[in-house]
């Protein structure tokens, strides 16, 4: 309103709002406009700096604390050491849990891929009634809050004796794994051109040749990338594992969480190094997935 007042002769002419907006054009060059623009820029930078300072500050603080020798009252730790990691890994048998977790997650990834690939193929290549409804059904397990099925699953598993066992943990991972692999493999399968298969058949390829020379080379990169994603996803499964895990049968992140939840007496540096341990496998698999995707892109020349 005030901006319009500085142009009284224009304000008289227009009655419409649209016209009014055009008349505000000189605002950009007026002193008030510059002031507002500066204010917007300054406050945005202030917001960005504040948020990023906190994010960086807390990340550096937790890393320094995990690698620091003695840190009390000073700005930086007295010295640096990896002793806390060694202590934490020995005290909580990180290696053992890491092996258990890898075993569970790898098995569950393979099983969910094997079970979901036929479904994905049918969903991508065939048409049938309620197909869309079925696809939405496959997305249900990771759109609903996991607590809703996790608690009854835990009670069922305890009553049939599957809880606190390794097969039990593998089976519950399938609730996450199957829908997720359908979800990420489906767009990939749909993007494959079926005409290549028709062409190969018409040129006289046998079923085996077709699979070996046409289907497999197209599918392998996508499945590898999906497998890594499913793996990372399962590595982070938390709620349901926490509910059915036993003292010796739990995954790494559930173990770390239980330790952090229960021990106020441990030195914080040791707890921080234990928490940071969770980063290592995830970083490794993120790099692996980047490498695989760039490798396959090079191979396919896309």
């Amino acid at each position, binding site marked *: 309103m005030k901006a319009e007042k500085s142009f009284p002769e224009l304000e008289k002419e227009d009655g419409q709002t649209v016209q009014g*907006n*055009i008349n*505000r*054009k000189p*605002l950009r060059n007026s002193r008030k*406009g510059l002031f507002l623009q500066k204010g*917007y820029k300054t406050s*945005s930078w202030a*917001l*960005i700096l504040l*948020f*990023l300072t*906190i*994010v960086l*500050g*807390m*990340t550096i603080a*937790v890393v320094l604390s995990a690698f620091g020798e003695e840190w009390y*009252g000073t*700005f930086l730790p007295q010295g640096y050491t990896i002793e806390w990691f060694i202590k934490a890994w020995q005290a909580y048998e990180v290696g053992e849990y890491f092996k258990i977790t890898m075993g569970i997650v790898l098995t569950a990834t393979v099983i969910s891929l094997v*079970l*979901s690939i*036929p*479904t994905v193929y*049918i969903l991508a*290549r*065939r*048409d*049938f009634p309620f197909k869309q409804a*079925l696809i939405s*059904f*496959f997305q249900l*397990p990771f759109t*609903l*809050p996991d*607590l*809703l*099925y996790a*608690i*009854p699953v835990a*009670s*069922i598993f305890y009553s049939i004796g599957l809880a606190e066992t390794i097969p039990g943990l593998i*089976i519950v991972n399938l609730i996450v794994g*199957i829908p997720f692999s359908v979800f990420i493999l489906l767009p990939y399968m749909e993007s494959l051109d*079926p*005409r290549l298969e028709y062409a190969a058949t018409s040129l006289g390829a046998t079923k085996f040749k077709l699979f070996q020379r046409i289907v497999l080379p197209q599918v392998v990169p996508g499945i590898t990338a999906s497998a890594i994603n499913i793996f990372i996803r399962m590595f982070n499964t*938390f*709620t349901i594992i*926490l*509910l059915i895990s036993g003292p010796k049968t739990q995954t790494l*992140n559930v173990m*770390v*969480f239980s330790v952090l939840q229960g021990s106020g007496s441990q030195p914080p540096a040791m*707890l*921080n190094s234990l*928490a*940071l341990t969770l*980063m290592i496998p*995830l970083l490794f698999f*993120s790099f692996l997935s980047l490498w695989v995707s760039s490798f396959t892109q090079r191979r396919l020349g896309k």
Partner: protein
Amino acid sequence: MNQEVFAKKRDYLLLLPSLIPLLLLFVYPLLKGFVMTFQQPETAGLTLANYVEFFTNSNYYDTIWRTLYLVVPASIIELFIAFGITYFIREKMRGGGIIAGLTIFPLTLGSIIVDMAVIAFFKPTGWFNTTLINMGLIDEPFTLVYNYAGAFIALVILGTAFIASNLVGMMGTIDPNLERAARTLGASRWVTFKRVFWPLIRSNVLTVFALNLIMQIGVYSTAVIVGNPASETRTFVVVAFEEAMRNFNYNMANTVAIVMGITQLLVLSIVFAIRKRGYIGSASTFK
């Protein structure tokens, strides 16, 4: 392009390997869980006793209020921070990619590490408090961990990262020509934002906001590690886990879970009712 063939009977068999495990592990427990809330641990018949207990015992019904009091203000703040940052770096500027990357970075850390990092940074002897004391702004350190504030900060950091990660892509899909057109026709920056940009991105922003909100209503590890799960941050999931793992009362635990699900649905329907009252559709015309 893809020539779809109508399914033969044999093809349906290929759906079974993935459908059967899901029916057994997901649909059946879901239904059983719903029935469980109408049962008591020992007796057989159906009863409303669990729900009556939930809504009459303040130990339970307080969780609704406590969860919403923690999560709703946090998600509104997250939306403002994430929108402010992503909108500002949307224009071509140096360092925009780095800012976006760092804003999203906490998502890669995951909830547990962010919780520990918040403790390391905001504890009484942490950098936040010592800096303020050295600057002479405060005498006593703030108590920002193991209480409401701690959980709030951790939630804001994770939620901002989540919302920003979605907004970066969404803002990219909006055709900049629309804004350029408005600007050449003489609209100011603010009017362009209000009349052109915001109406186009509004529905997407509200969807992400709703997703983030229902995700955070299920907050657990943050509430336990940086919060005070005994009182201030006793959220739905904390109570549900306590019932399931300490009291082995799966019926009550699932009642809490169902009430949580209903709360999430209500929140979702409110946000979508707001969303419906505006333009919903494509924003990438004339590209």
